[in-house]
C-alpha cells in the first residue's frame, strides 16, 4: 500500500467548492482550494435572495466564505487554474497556474486608495456589466480574500507602460508590477472539480432582442439590479429610460428545454428564481405587475410549491402558460411580447422590462479544461457521471460536485459538495484528530476584574442598515454610553477587512468587551467570536445587537424611529456586554461509531461510505430485509438496473466487517448527545432481547412511502394501480401477450393540493419511465399522462421528449377540474374504466377508455417520524419530513449537533439524489467522528452551591438529565457535558442558585434596566 497523501485539490470556490473544502478540512485534510476569480463565492455571491425562504444570499454565504478563508486547513489559491493532473489516485501531482495580480495580498489592506486613482474604467463582470469598475479592483465589495488585484488586460501600466498611479497611491507598497504568472505543483490524494457553470448567453435567441433592446435583461442581470449592494442599489430602473418599470415579464426556458438549439435539458432552477425575482421585484417597486411566461412551473423541491402558491395568491404574480414567439421594441424602450395562447390564439402584451430566465450551461472553457485533465463530458458539456455514481468523474480519484455535473440549486450543490468530500476522503491518508482545532489562537488575555472597556462596532451592511438607520448617529450614541471606550461604523462588519479592523481596535484601545450591532447573532455570532479569539480575547466577551433583521428591515419606512430603536438595542447590548465574563468550553470525547437508522438505499449508502473510510457503523432496519423502496424499483430512465444496484449494495454491506446490520429491529430509546449516544434497539420478532449501542453520531435515513390513496377508484378497481404497482406488473410481464390498448396515468394524486401542499418530485419521471418501458414492449399501446405540470427537471427532460416522440400523449388538467374514473360496469370490479378529463385549454371533456389507470400517488412521510423526531429532539416540517438546520446551506444537518438526515426522510428525491445526500450525511458525520474530541457549549448552567437548598426542582425540569442531586451534600450540580444551556432550571430556581452563563440573571437585569436608566438620565438632563 502506498502512502496516501493528506492533501486534496479542489477546483472552483463557489458554494460547492467552499462546502467541500470546509468538510474535508474539518476531517483533517489539507485543502488546496483554487479559484480563477480573485474572490471565492461563485455565482451565489451574485444572487440577491435565495428561494424559497428569501434569505439574503450573501448574508448566509458570507459566514461560510469567512470560515473558509480562516480555516487553518484550507489554503486558497486565487486567480488560479488547474493545468494538469498526473499520477495515481492517492498520489496525484497537479500543476496549477497562479496568474499575476500585481498586488501583494499580504501587504494589501484593501484601503481602496489605488482604486480611486486608477484612470481606467472597465465593465464589471460581477455586476453583469451593469456598471464599471477600475483596472485595479476587488471582485466585489465583500470579496474574500479582500485584497485588490490588477486586471492586466486593461491596466495602462501593463499594456502600454504608462500610468502607475496606483503604485504611487499605495502607502502599503503592495503594488508589484514585476509580478509574473507562476506554475506550481501540488501533491494531493484526490481532486474535486467544482468548476460550476455559466449563465446561458441569450444572444442566440435573436427573436428576443437581447443586447438590441436595452430593456431586455437576463435573470442574472436582474438579480444584480434587485440587489441592495448591486449597481442600482436595489432601486430597479429600466436601462433604456432610467425609469422604474411599471410591469415586468419573465420569459422562462431561455436556453433550456430547447431541442432545436441542442439544449434538451431543464436548468432546474429558473422557475424558482423567476418566482423569487418576481416576488422581490414586487416588494421593491410599488404597484409593479409581474408576469411569468412559462411552459411548466417546475417547483419540484422541498417547500417550493408553497412558495409558488404564495407568489400567485399572496403576491399576485401572474402566470401565463405560453412560449413567447418574439419581442419588439416600442418607442421609449417599452417592449411588446408576441405570444400564442394554449388554444392557438395569438396575443401581444406590452411590458417595461423583460427578464430572460436564462438557463445554466457548460463553461465556455470547459472543453479545453476537460481535455487537459482527461475527464469525459456528456452531450451538453456537463461532467459525465455514471448512473448511481453521481459524484465520480470518468477518471478515478477525480470527483465532481455542484452544477458542473448538471443543473443544481444551492442545497443540491451543497449536498453534492459534502458528498464528494466523503468520496474523496477515502483516497486521503486521514487519521482521527487529537486536537480540537488546528487553528492556533493567541493566549487569552486575562480580563477578570478589569473595568469593562467596550468596543462598539456599528455595521452599515451596505445600505441594508444604513439605508434606514442613521448609523453615524448610532455610533455617536454608543460613544456616550458608560464603559464604551471606542465606537466605529463598519461597511460590512462581517467582511474580512472589517474583522481585521475590529482586531486592530481591540489591540489599540485595549478593549475587553465587544459589541457588534449588525445582523442576527444566529448567523454571525460565531464569526465575530472567532475574531475575538484571534485578538486574544475570550470569545464570550462579545454581544450582538440585531439592528438589521429586527430593525432596519422591519421598519424601512420609519427611519427616525428605527434609529431610536437601534440606539436602544445598542444600549441594551452594551448593558449586557458590561456583565459578560470569559467562559470555557468543555472538551467532549467522541465515540467514532455511527448509528444509521433505516436500511434503504440512503441508509446503506451512508453506512458503506463511512465503513469504507474505516468507521464502524450500526445499521438498523425495521424490515426483515435491507433495501427499502429500492426493492420495488425495477427500471431506470436510462439503461442502468436498479436491482443490480440493490444487490451489489446489500452484498457490500454484508461483506464489510465494520458494519453491523440489525434487520427486523426497532429503535426503542436514544439517549445522550454528540459523541456519546446510547441507543437501545429491540428486535421485532418475539423473544428478541434489547441491545444497547454506543455511538457518536446518528444518521436518519428512515425513508418514506406511497400515500395510501383512496382516490380515482383505487380501492374499488383492480385496474387502478399505483406507479410502483404498475412497475412491478411491467417487470413481472403481466401485460405480455394480453390484450391491452389504453393506459391512463394520472399525476399529482394527493400531491400539490390542500393539506398536502408539496410536489413529490419523482412521479413525472416515474410515469415517463414506465410509459417508455411499456411503449418498448407494446409500441401500439396508447398511453395518456394526465398532468398538471411536467416536472422532468435537469437531464431528465430528454426522456420527456422521447416519450412524446414515441407517441405518449400528455394531457394537462386543472386542480379545479380533476379527472374522474368510473368503472364501465359498476357491478364488476374487474371492469375496464372510463377516465374523464377536461382539457383546460379547450374546456372540452375528453373521455378515455382505459384498461389500466396508473396513479402517481404522493410520497408520504411515515407517521413514525414523529416518534423518532421526539427521541432525537429534532423537528419535522408541516408535511412530516425531517426539517434540516438550514434549507440552503445545511441540507443534511440538524440544529442538534451530531445528527444528520438523508434520503426520502428529508424529502422526495430520486436514486442519484439519495445517494448524493447519503454520502453527504456520511461526510458531515465524518467531520465529527474524525475528531477524538469536540468542544461542548460554553454557555451552560452552573449551581452556586452556597445558595442551593436542594429542592430538586432543577432535576425535575431539566430535559437532558444534566441537573443532578449530590445526595451527600444535598445540593444540585450540573453535568457540563449534558447541559445544553436552555436555562429552564435557572428560571425555576427560587433560590437563584442556578444561573445560565452567557445569559445570567444579572446580564438580563442590566439589559432590562438599561433603558430605564437612559430615560432617567434623559429626564434629569433636560
Amino acid at each position, binding site marked *: 500500500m502506498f502512502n496516501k497523501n493528506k492533501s486534496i485539490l479542489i477546483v472552483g470556490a463557489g458554494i460547492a467548492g467552499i462546502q467541500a473544502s470546509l468538510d474535508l478540512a474539518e476531517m483533517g485534510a489539507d485543502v488546496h482550494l483554487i479559484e480563477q476569480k480573485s474572490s471565492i463565492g461563485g455565482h451565489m455571491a451574485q444572487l440577491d435572495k435565495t428561494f424559497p425562504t428569501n434569505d439574503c444570499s450573501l448574508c448566509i454565504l458570507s459566514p461560510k466564505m469567512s470560515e473558509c478563508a480562516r480555516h487553518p486547513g484550507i489554503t486558497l489559491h486565487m486567480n488560479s487554474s488547474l493545468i494538469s493532473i498526473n499520477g495515481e489516485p492517492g498520489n496525484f501531482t497537479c500543476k496549477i497556474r497562479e496568474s499575476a495580480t500585481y498586488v501583494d495580498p499580504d501587504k494589501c489592506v484593501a484601503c481602496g486608495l489605488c482604486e480611486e486613482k486608477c484612470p481606467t474604467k472597465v465593465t464589471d463582470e460581477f455586476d453583469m456589466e451593469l456598471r464599471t469598475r477600475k483596472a485595479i479592483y476587488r471582485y466585489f465589495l465583500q470579496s474574500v480574500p479582500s485584497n485588490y488585484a490588477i486586471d492586466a488586460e486593461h491596466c495602462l501600466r501593463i499594456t502600454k507602460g504608462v500610468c502607475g498611479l496606483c503604485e504611487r497611491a499605495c502607502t502599503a507598497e503592495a503594488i508589484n508590477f514585476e509580478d509574473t504568472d507562476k506554475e506550481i505543483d501540488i501533491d494531493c490524494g484526490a481532486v474535486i472539480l467544482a468548476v460550476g457553470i455559466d449563465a446561458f448567453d441569450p444572444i442566440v435567441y435573436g427573436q428576443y432582442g437581447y443586447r438590441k433592446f436595452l430593456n431586455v435583461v437576463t435573470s442574472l442581470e436582474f438579480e444584480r439590479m434587485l440587489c441592495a449592494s448591486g449597481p442600482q442599489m436595489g432601486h430597479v430602473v429600466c436601462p433604456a429610460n432610467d425609469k422604474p418599470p411599471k410591469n415586468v415579464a419573465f420569459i422562462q426556458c431561455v436556453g433550456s428545454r430547447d431541442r432545436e438549439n441542442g439544449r434538451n435539458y431543464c436548468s432546474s432552477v429558473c422557475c424558482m428564481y423567476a418566482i423569487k425575482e418576481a416576488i422581490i421585484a414586487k416588494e421593491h417597486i410599488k404597484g409593479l405587475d409581474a408576469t411569468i411566461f412559462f411552459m411548466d412551473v417546475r417547483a419540484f423541491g422541498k417547500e417550493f410549491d408553497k412558495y409558488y402558491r404564495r407568489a400567485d395568491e399572496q403576491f399576485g404574480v401572474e402566470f401565463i402558460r405560453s412560449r413567447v414567439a418574439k419581442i419588439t421594441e416600442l418607442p421609449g424602450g417599452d417592449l411588446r411580447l408576441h405570444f400564442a395562447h394554449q388554444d392557438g390564439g395569438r396575443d401581444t402584451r406590452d411590458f417595461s422590462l423583460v427578464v430572460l430566465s436564462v438557463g445554466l450551461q457548460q463553461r465556455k472553457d470547459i472543453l479545453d479544461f476537460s481535455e487537459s485533465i482527461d475527464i469525459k463530458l456528456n452531450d451538453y458539456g456537463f461532467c459525465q457521471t455514471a448512473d448511481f455514481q453521481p459524484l465520480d468523474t470518468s477518471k478515478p480519484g477525480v470527483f465532481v460536485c455542484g452544477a458542473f455535473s448538471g443543473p443544481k440549486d444551492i442545497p443540491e450543490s451543497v449536498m453534492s459538495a459534502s458528498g464528494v468530500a466523503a468520496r474523496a476522503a477515502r483516497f486521503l491518508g486521514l487519521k482521527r484528530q487529537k486536537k480540537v482545532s488546528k487553528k492556533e489562537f493567541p493566549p487569552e488575555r486575562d480580563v477578570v476584574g478589569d473595568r469593562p472597556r467596550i468596543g462598539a462596532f456599528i455595521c452599515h451592511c451596505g445600505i441594508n442598515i444604513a439605508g434606514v438607520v442613521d448609523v453615524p448617529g448610532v455610533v455617536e450614541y454608543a460613544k456616550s454610553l458608560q464603559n464604551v471606550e471606542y465606537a466605529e461604523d463598519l461597511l460590512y462588519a462581517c467582511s474580512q477587512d472589517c474583522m481585521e479592523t475590529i482586531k486592530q481596535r481591540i489591540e489599540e484601545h485595549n478593549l475587553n468587551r465587544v459589541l457588534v450591532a449588525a445582523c442576527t447573532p444566529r448567523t454571525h455570532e460565531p464569526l465575530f467570536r472567532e475574531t475575538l479569539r484571534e485578538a486574544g480575547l475570550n470569545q464570550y466577551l462579545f454581544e450582538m445587537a440585531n439592528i438589521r433583521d429586527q430593525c432596519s428591515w422591519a421598519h424601512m419606512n420609519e427611519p427616525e424611529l428605527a434609529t431610536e430603536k437601534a440606539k436602544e438595542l445598542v444600549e441594551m447590548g452594551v448593558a449586557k456586554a458590561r456583565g459578560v465574563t470569559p467562559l470555557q468550553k468543555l472538551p467532549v470525547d467522541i465515540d467514532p461509531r455511527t448509528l444509521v437508522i433505516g436500511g434503504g438505499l440512503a441508509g446503506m449508502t451512508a453506512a458503506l461510505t463511512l465503513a469504507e473510510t474505516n468507521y464502524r457503523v450500526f445499521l438498523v432496519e425495521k424490515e426483515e430485509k435491507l433495501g427499502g423502496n429500492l426493492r420495488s424499483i425495477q427500471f431506470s430512465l436510462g439503461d442502468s438496473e436498479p436491482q443490480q444496484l440493490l444487490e451489489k449494495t446489500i452484498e457490500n454491506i454484508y461483506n464489510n466487517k465494520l458494519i453491523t446490520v440489525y434487520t427486523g429491529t426497532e429503535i426503542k430509546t436514544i439517549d445522550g448527545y454528540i459523541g456519546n449516544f446510547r441507543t437501545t434497539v429491540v428486535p421485532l420478532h418475539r423473544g428478541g432481547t434489547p441491545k444497547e449501542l454506543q455511538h457518536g453520531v446518528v444518521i436518519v435515513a428512515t425513508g418514506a412511502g406511497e400515500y395510501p390513496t383512496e382516490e380515482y377508484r383505487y380501492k374499488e378497481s383492480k385496474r387502478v394501480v399505483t406507479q410502483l404497482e404498475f412497475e412491478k406488473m411491467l417487470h413481472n410481464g403481466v401485460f405480455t401477450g394480453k390484450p391491452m390498448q389504453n393506459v391512463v396515468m394520472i399525476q399529482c394524486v394527493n400531491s400539490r393540493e390542500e393539506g398536502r401542499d408539496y410536489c413529490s418530485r419523482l412521479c413525472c419521471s416515474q410515469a415517463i419511465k414506465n410509459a417508455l418501458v411499456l411503449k418498448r414492449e407494446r409500441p401500439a399501446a396508447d398511453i395518456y399522462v394526465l398532468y398538471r405540470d411536467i416536472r422532468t427537471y435537469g437531464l431528465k427532460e430528454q426522456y420527456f421528449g422521447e416519450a412524446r416522440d414515441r407517441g405518449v400523449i400528455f394531457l394537462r388538467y386543472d386542480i379545479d377540474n380533476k379527472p374522474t374514473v368510473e368503472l364501465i360496469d359498476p357491478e364488476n370490479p374487474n371492469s375496464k374504466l372510463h377516465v374523464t378529463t377536461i382539457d383546460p385549454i379547450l374546456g372540452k371533456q375528453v373521455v378515455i377508455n382505459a384498461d389500466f389507470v396508473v396513479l402517481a400517488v404522493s410520497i408520504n412521510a411515515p407517521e413514525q417520524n414523529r416518534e423518532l423526531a421526539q427521541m432525537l429532539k429534532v423537528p419535522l416540517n408541516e408535511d412530516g419530513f425531517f426539517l434540516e438546520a438550514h434549507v440552503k446551506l445545511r441540507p443534511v444537518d440538524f440544529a442538534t449537533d451530531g445528527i444528520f438526515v438523508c434520503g426520502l426522510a428529508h424529502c422526495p428525491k430520486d436514486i442519484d439524489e439519495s445517494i448524493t445526500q447519503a454520502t453527504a450525511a456520511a461526510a458531515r458525520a465524518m467531520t465529527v467522528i474524525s475528531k477524538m474530541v469536540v468542544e461542548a457549549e460554553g454557555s451552560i448552567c452552573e449551581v452556586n452551591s452556597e*445558595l442551593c437548598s436542594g429542592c430538586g426542582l432543577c432535576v425535575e425540569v431539566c430535559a437532558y438529565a444534566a441537573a443532578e442531586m449530590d445526595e451527600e451534600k444535598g445540593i444540585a450540580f450540573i453535568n457540563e457535558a449534558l447541559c445544553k444551556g436552555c436555562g429552564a432550571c435557572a428560571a425555576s430556581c427560587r433560590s437563584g442558585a442556578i444561573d445560565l452563563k452567557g445569559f445570567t440573571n444579572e446580564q438580563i437585569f442590566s439589559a432590562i434596566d438599561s433603558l430605564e436608566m437612559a430615560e432617567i438620565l434623559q429626564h434629569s438632563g433636560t
Partner: protein
Amino acid sequence: MKELVEKIRKIFSDEKLELLIGYTKGTLPLRSTPGLIESADEADKLIFDFTCCNNLAKYLVDEKKRSGNTHRIGIIAKGCDARAVVQLVMEGQFERENVVIIGVPCKGVIDPSKLRKKLNGKEIIKFKVNRDKITLFGKNFELELNKNELFSDSCLSCRYPNAVQYDYFIGEPSEPLGVRDEYASVDEFEQKLPEKRWTYFEKEYSRCIRCYACRNACPMCYCEECFVDRSTPQWIGKGNDLSDTIIFHIVRVLHTAGRCVDCGACAAACPLNIDIRMLGKRIEKEVIERFGFTPGLDFETEPAMATFKENDKEEFIM
C-alpha cells in the same frame, strides 16, 4: 390531653426518637408555643388544642437544616402541618424515614392576628370555652365571641383538618369546619373591576414594612438566601418602594405556587394584618383547576411546577 401524652411517650421510645416537635403551653392565655421534646419524660409538657396555630413543619425543616438531617424527628401534625411535611419530603428537605408524623385531629386554630384585632391592644387574663363560644376576660372587660371569629380563615374552609399522610394518628378524625366556601372570597373579589382590585392590593401592600414575618413563618420558605436578600445581583429593591414591595409579594406567591398548603402561618405572622392569603388563594385555585394538583397529599404526584402535560391549557397564549 392525657391520651396524647401517653401515646407520644410510647411512640418516643418505640421509634427511638431523638427529638419531637409539638406544642407546649404559652406564657399568655390563648397562646401556645412550639416545643422541642428531647425525651419521653418531657412528653407531659405537650398540649394540643385550638391555640396550636403554628405550622410545625417550619420548625422541622429548620431543625433538619440545623442538625444536618440525620436523626429521626417526630412531629405533631394537624392536616396542614402534615401536608407541609409531605411537600418538604417531596422537595428533598429530609428523608421520609427520618420523620415520624403523628397526626392529630384539628378542629380549627386561632389566628393570632384576628385575636389582636379583637383585643385592639387590650390584654386578656383568662378565657372560658363553652362549645362554639369563647369568652375572654381582661382588666375591666369581658368579651364573648363565636370561636369562628378567632379562627384562622384557612381553618374555616379547610378541607384537610386531619393529617393525610401519617405514621400515627391520635384521636378521632375531625370533620372539616365548613364554615366558608373555600374560594368564595376569591371569587367574590374577582368580580370587582380590575381597578378596584388593584387599589385593594396597593392599599394592602402599601402597609407592608418588609419585616418578612410572613416569609419567616412559612414552612415552604427555606431557601438559603431569599431572593429579596440577594445583592449580587439585586433581584428587587430593598427599600420601601411600593412596586418593590408588591413584586416581593407576587414573587413570594409564585414561589409557593403548587407548594402552599394554606396553613395560614403567613397571615397569622403579619404584624400589620395585611391580606396575604388573597393572592395565594387565587393561585392555589388556579393550580388545582389548571394542573389538577393539590400539594402535600401524597408522596407520588409530581409537584405542579416541576412537571407539565403536553396538553396543558394554553388559552392565554396568542
